[in-house]
């Protein structure tokens, strides 16, 4: 891809804030259909079957505890490797929480991470805009040749670690930090389709 233009950095870029607004996770399935836009480097549709949309679980975390880090490396090849690591802290250490976390074990996952930059600076009202997002575990560089078989890309997101405990002192944290990792060969894409959050805020649908 030829370099035709450089890049601006504006005041609005400098006002960008850290952290994630929410995290949504779902399993890859054999019938998933993913539509990529390689011009804008986005995903325009994630469907459980053709044109049916897809359901995701929304996982809340302790405020200011979740982050996505992306480490790209190139070893002189025509591609770079991107290790995408998503981690967040779940306070509580309860059975109900563990039952939810067991669902990650051994599954091939995709994660949608929406950050806090959809609101214009100074605006406090939660926005319906969710464009400032990244998807990990869904990529289109070096994929399985059957483009409808995203479950065989082997670039899924997977559970890497669950770390935490009760602490010892009464004032210690009790809970676990969940880490999901996806190794892919392109920068995480933005989901450019429609995201609709459930009424209770614990699920969403991509269409």
């Amino acid at each position, binding site marked *: 891809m030829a370099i035709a233009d450089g890049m601006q950095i504006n005041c609005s870029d400098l006002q960008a804030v850290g952290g994630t607004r929410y995290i949504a996770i779902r399993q890859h399935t054999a019938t998933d259909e993913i539509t990529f836009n390689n011009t804008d480097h986005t995903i325009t549709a994630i469907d459980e079957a053709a044109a049916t949309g897809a359901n995701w679980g929304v996982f809340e975390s302790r405020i200011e505890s979740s982050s996505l880090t992306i480490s790209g490396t190139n070893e002189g090849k025509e591609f770079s490797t991107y290790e995408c690591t998503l981690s967040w802290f779940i306070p509580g250490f309860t059975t109900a929480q563990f039952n939810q976390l067991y669902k990650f074990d051994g599954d091939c996952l995709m994660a949608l991470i929406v950050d806090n930059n959809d609101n214009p600076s100074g605006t406090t*009202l939660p926005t319906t805009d969710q464009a400032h997002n990244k998807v990990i575990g869904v990529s289109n560089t070096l994929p399985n040749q059957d483009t409808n078989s995203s479950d065989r890309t082997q670039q899924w997101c997977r559970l890497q670690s669950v770390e935490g405990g009760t602490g010892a002192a009464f004032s210690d944290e009790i809970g676990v930090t969940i880490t999901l990792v996806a190794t892919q060969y392109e920068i995480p894409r933005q989901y450019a389709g429609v995201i609709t959050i459930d009424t209770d805020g614990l699920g969403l649908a991509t269409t």
Partner: protein
Amino acid sequence: MAITTGININCSDIVGAGGIRNVLIRTWTSGDTIAYTNTSTSHAISSITDTGGSTATWYNYEFKNELPSLTVTAAKENGSTSYECALTFMMPDMDLGKSAALQGLMDTCMMVIAVGNNGKAYVLGVSQKYSNEKATLRNQTYASMTGAEGATGAGINDDNGWTVTMGCKQWEAPRLYSGSLSLYTNAGSGTGTSTTT
């Protein structure tokens, strides 16, 4: 938000009295409904009501005069500005009732209204920026009792009492309550309540 207006300072601002007149505290509940006002001239909360009702009930914490204060410290890092809010008040005489009141403040997520001697009602622990997407109750910017210091004093002239600090961290300046606030009229044994509508 672009700057569209400046600010005047009038005589009434200059003569506003310092200190806190009332401290009202309640626990967040799942049916709470908050109405926010966001305009270029008003950063306020116009209504706080409880489950299915038209009012919310607040409990009154009296204190020794001229000791309570509210401090707000804002700090900007990158594009994020956080506001650390701390309300401190002193309940004289460490007796049974005060100890019980402290126990009630320990393990709960709260909102606080501090009414200043200037007549303004400042709300702590209720903010809209970075709040939960769908459930107000799961907003994590609530107020907590961040400190309590009890002291008998040593000299006979010293104070005996509890100094309580209610704190919260939020990502917007504390809002003023612009709705209707009915203060208690009889707080015998701490049973009087105030209401917001």
